[in-house]
C-alpha cells in the first residue's frame, strides 16, 4: 500500500505503520502547518514521510541546514500563530539548545513541538544521551508516548498543552518507538484556520532587556506551576490499578510496553502501574497518592534515574514512608535499552518470585559456545562507495610522502565515511560531533604539534557545521587539509537532499549551492576538485596539499553509489582473471569492497556480479592486471 494513501487515509482505518510514519500522520491530524528538521536516526522518516504528502496535506516541509536553523524556522512560524513541528536526533537538540533556551522565556503563540529521538543502546548515535534532563534546564514540558499509536495520538495533547500555556513542548521518542512498526488506527484530522501574523511585542521577544529577562523567568516559573495543576488528570497519566495489588510500578515511554506485556503474560494481579505520559513537570499529587498505597514501588525507566530521583525527592518532601526501588538499588542498568528479560528480572526482584516459564537447563552454555564462532559483521562501505577511493588515496599519499601513520592525524566526522575507522582502512582517528573534524584538526596544529592534520568531512556535514570552523582556520592561518567527501546527498540517514543538491525535501528544484564557492569565498587559496574514483589524481592532489603551507581544501566529488545505482548509473562489470590472480588480496585490503570475495580453496579472489558497482577501484589497485572489464 502506497504510504501516501495511508498518510492521507480516513479516520478509523487501520494500517501497519512505522512509529515515524505514525508521527507524520499525527502532525497532519493535529493540523501542523510547518515542519522542519535535520536528518538523524531514529527520526528521519518523519519528514521523509511528510515530504511525500506535503502539498495535499497543506504543510510546508523542509530539511533545514542544521537543527538550530530548523528550530528557529519552526519558532518563527509558531510566533505567527501556526502550529509548527521540528524534528531531530538527540545530539541535534544540543545544537539547537541556544535558541530553545531563549524560546522558553519568549514562549510561543501557535503550538510548537520539538521532537527529539533518543537512542538508548545506542544503535546509531554518538552517546546514550538522556534528553529528559534538558527539561530541567529549559523548564519546558515533555510528553512521552510509549508506542506508535500513542506517538501519533499524543501530538494533539502536546499541541493543546503548548497553546494553552503558550510554551514550546518537547516530545521525546526513543528508537524502539520511532522504528517499531505496529497496527495504528487513524484519527480525525482537525482543522484550524489561522492567518499567519506576528504580533509585535518587544518586551516579550527581545532578550536585550535584562529586567525583562528576569520578568520572563518569573513568567516561566509561574507557567510551570500552572501546568503542574493542569496535568493531574488523564491523558497526562494512565493508572492501571488492581484491588489486590501490593506493589506499584511507575514508568513512562517505551519502558511501559515491556511492563505491560510481562504483567499480562504472567497475570500479575499484585502489581498496579502508574504510566506517566508527561515527564516534565510531574503530576506530583497523583504520584504521591500512588506512593502512599504501596510499601514497595519500582521505577522502570531506561538510561538515567530521571524519574527515580525526582520521585524519591517527592517522597521525602511529602514524608511518605515507602521503599522506592530503581537504578540506585541496582534494579535496572543505566546503560543500554530495555529488553523483556531486564524488565522481567526487575519485576521478579520486586515481587520476590520467579516468573520464568522455561525449565532450567544448560541452554545458556550452548548459546555462548555458538556465539564464539560467529564472526562480526559490521556495516562496510558499500561496493562503489566513493569514500573508499578517498581514504585509499589519502593512505597512499601518506605512504608516498614517506610519512608514518602516526605522523598524520586524520580527524573524522559524522556520516557513512566514519565507517573508515574499521579494517581494512583504519583511517579516521576521531568522530565526535557534526563539524568537529575541522576545529579539532586546527587545535592539534595550534597546540604546536609537528604532525600533519587532515579533517575529513562529508558534504552535508560541511553545510551543517563545517563552514564556521573553516572561516576560523582561514582567519588564524592554520595549516590543515580539509578533505570534503562530496557524495551529493545525506547518505547515512536515507539520502535526503542538502543545499548542495539543488533540490528541496519536497523535490522542488532550487539554486544549488556549490561547496567550492563557499570555500573560495572564505579565502582558501589551495582548492582542488577531484574524482575519488581516480586514485592517481586524488592521491596527487592530497600529496600536494600535505606539502602546502596554509589551509587547503580538496573536494572529492562523486555521487553516492546507492543513489547512482538507483538511477541506473553503474559502471561496467569487472571480473577477475583466475590465471593472473596471485591471491595477494591487495584489492580487498585497499578498497575494502564487499563485492570482492576470497575463495579459500583456490587462494584467489572473485567478484560477485550482483554486488559489483563498476567503480574500477580494484582494477586500478591490482598490480597484476588480473581485474578487467567484463561487460554489464
Amino acid at each position, binding site marked *: 500500500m502506497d504510504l501516501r494513501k495511508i498518510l492521507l487515509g480516513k479516520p478509523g482505518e487501520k494500517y501497519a505503520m512505522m512509529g515515524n510514519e505514525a508521527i507524520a500522520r499525527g502532525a497532519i491530524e493535529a493540523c501542523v502547518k510547518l515542519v522542519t528538521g535535520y536528518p538523524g536516526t531514529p527520526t528521519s522518516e518523519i519528514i521523509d514521510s511528510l515530504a511525500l504528502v506535503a502539498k495535499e496535506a497543506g504543510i510546508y516541509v523542509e530539511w533545514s541546514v542544521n537543527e538550530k536553523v530548523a528550530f528557529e524556522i519552526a519558532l518563527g512560524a509558531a510566533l505567527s500563530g501556526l502550529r509548527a513541528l521540528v524534528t531531530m536526533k538527540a545530539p541535534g537538540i544540543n545544537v539547537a539548545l541556544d535558541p530553545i533556551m531563549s524560546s522558553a522565556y519568549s514562549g510561543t503563540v501557535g503550538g510548537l513541538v520539538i521532537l527529539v529521538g533518543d537512542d538508548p543502546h545506542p544503535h546509531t548515535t554518538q552517546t546514550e544521551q538522556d534528553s529528559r534532563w534538558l527539561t530541567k534546564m529549559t523548564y519546558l514540558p515533555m510528553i512521552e508516548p510509549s508506542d506508535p499509536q500513542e506517538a501519533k495520538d499524543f501530538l494533539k495533547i502536546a499541541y493543546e498543552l503548548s497553546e494553552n500555556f503558550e510554551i514550546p513542548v518537547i516530545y521525546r521518542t526513543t528508537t524502539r518507538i520511532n522504528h517499531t512498526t505496529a497496527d495504528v488506527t487513524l484519527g480525525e484530522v482537525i482543522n484550524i484556520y489561522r492567518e499567519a501574523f506576528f504580533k509585535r511585542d518587544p518586551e516579550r521577544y527581545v532578550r536585550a532587556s535584562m529586567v525583562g529577562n528576569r520578568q520572563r523567568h518569573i513568567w516561566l516559573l509561574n507557567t510551570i506551576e500552572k501546568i503542574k495543576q493542569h496535568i493531574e488528570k488523564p491523558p497526562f497519566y494512565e493508572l492501571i490499578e488492581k484491588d489486590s495489588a501490593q506493589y506499584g510500578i511507575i514508568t513512562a515511554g517505551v519502558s511501559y*510496553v515491556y511492563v505491560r506485556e510481562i504483567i499480562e503474560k504472567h497475570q500479575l494481579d499484585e502489581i498496579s502501574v502508574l504510566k506517566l505520559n508527561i515527564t516534565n513537570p510531574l503530576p506530583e499529587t497523583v504520584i504521591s497518592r500512588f506512593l502512599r498505597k504501596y510499601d514497595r514501588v519500582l521505577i522502570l525507566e531506561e538510561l538515567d534515574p530521571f524519574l527515580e530521583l525526582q520521585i524519591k525527592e517527592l517522597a521525602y518532601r511529602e514524608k511518605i514512608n515507602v521503599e522506592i526501588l530503581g537504578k540506585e538499588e541496582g534494579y535496572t542498568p543505566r546503560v543500554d535499552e530495555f529488553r523483556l528479560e531486564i524488565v522481567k528480572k526487575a519485576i521478579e526482584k520486586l515481587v520476590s518470585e520467579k516468573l520464568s516459564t522455561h525449565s532450567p537447563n544448560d541452554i545458556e552454555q550452548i548459546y555462548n559456545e555458538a556465539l564464539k564462532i560467529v564472526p562480526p559483521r559490521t556495516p562496510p562501505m558499500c561496493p562503489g562507495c566513493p569514500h573508499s577511493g578517498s581514504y585509499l588515496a589519502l593512505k597512499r599519499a601518506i605512504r608516498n610522502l614517506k610519512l608514518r601513520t602516526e605522523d598524520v592525524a586524520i580527524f573524522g566526522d559524522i556520516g557513512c565515511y566514519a565507517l573508515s575507522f574499521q579494517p581494512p582502512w583504519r583511517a579516521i582517528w576521531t568522530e565526535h560531533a557534526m563539524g568537529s573534524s575541522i576545529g579539532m584538526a586546527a587545535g592539534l596544529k595550534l597546540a604546536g604539534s609537528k604532525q600533519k592534520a587532515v579533517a575529513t568531512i562529508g558534504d552535508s556535514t560541511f553545510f551543517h557545521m563545517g563552514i564556521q570552523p573553516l572561516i576560523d582556520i582561514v582567519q588564524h592561518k592554520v595549516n590543515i587539509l580539509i578533505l570534503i567527501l562530496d557524495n551529493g546527498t545525506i547518505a547515512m540517514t536515507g539520502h535526503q537532499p542538502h543545499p548542495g543538491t539543488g533540490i528541496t525535501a519536497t523535490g522542488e528544484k532550487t539554486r544549488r549551492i556549490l561547496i567550492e564557492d563557499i570555500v573560495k569565498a572564505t579565502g582558501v587559496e589551495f582548492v582542488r576538485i577531484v574524482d575519488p574514483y581516480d586514485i592517481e589524481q586524488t592521491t596527487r592532489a592530497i600529496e600536494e596539499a600535505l606539502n602546502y603551507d596554509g589551509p587547503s581544501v580538496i573536494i572529492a566529488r562523486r555521487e553516492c553509489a546507492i543513489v547512482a545505482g538507483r538511477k541506473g548509473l553503474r559502471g561496467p562489470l569487472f571480473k577477475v582473471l583466475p590465471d593472473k590472480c596471485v591471491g595477494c588480496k591487495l584489492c580487498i585490503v585497499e578498497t575494502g569492497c564487499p563485492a570482492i570475495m576470497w575463495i579459500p580453496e583456490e587462494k584467489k579472489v572473485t567478484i560477485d556480479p550482483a554486488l559489483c558497482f563498476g567503480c574500477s577501484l580494484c582494477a586500478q589497485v591490482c598490480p597484476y592486471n588480473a581485474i578487467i572489464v567484463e561487460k554489464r
Partner: protein
Amino acid sequence: MSIEEFNILIAGVGGQGGLTLSRIIGHAAVLEGYRLRIGETLGMSQRGGAVVSFVRFGNRVFSPLIPERDADILFGLEPIEALRNIKFVGEKTAIILNIRKIPPLIVNLGLRKYPDLEEILSFFKKITSRIHSYDFSIEAQKLGSIRVMNTIMLGAAFGLGLIPLKSESIEQGIRSVVPRKYLELNLKAFEVGKKIGKDLFSFD
C-alpha cells in the same frame, strides 16, 4: 483471532530483503485483525551489516522485541546471521535456513574464519529438531532474481504449515509492500516457496 503471541525472527544481511519480509507478514497480520509489533533498527545496519527484524502478532503483544528462546520461527536468510541470533531459539522454534553464505569483510580480509555449515547446524540441533535448511538462493536465481529469495523462504514456511495466517492475507501483504514491477515475480516466488515447503515437510 485466538493467537495470544506469535514470534518471528528474521536475521540476514542488509540488502537481502529481511525488512520487506517483515512488512509483508506485518500487513497480513493487521489484515487479520491482530495486534502487531515489528522491532527493527534502521540506519547503520542497512548496508551490508547484520540486520534483524522481530515480527510479533497476537492479542497479547506489546513489546517490539521477542523474549529470548521464544521465537516460533527463525528465518535465517544467511547462516551466521541465524547463528548470531541463537538466543531467541528454544525447543519450540522452527528454523528456516538459507544455506548460502555471505562472508563478512572481516572473513575476506582473513582476520576471522567463517564456520562450517555443519558446525552451525549442530548448535541449532542441540536445541530444536525443527530445522529446515535449503539453498533458497538457487531457487531465486532460477526464477530470475536473487532478490526473491526472501519471498521463497516465506512461501516455504507457509508450505510447511508454520505460519498461522491465511495465504490470501500474505498475498495481500505482498501486494501492499512489493513495488508493482516486482509484484508478479514475488507472487510466483511465494508459490514456488510453498511447493518447496510441502516437499520439505514430506521429506521430514
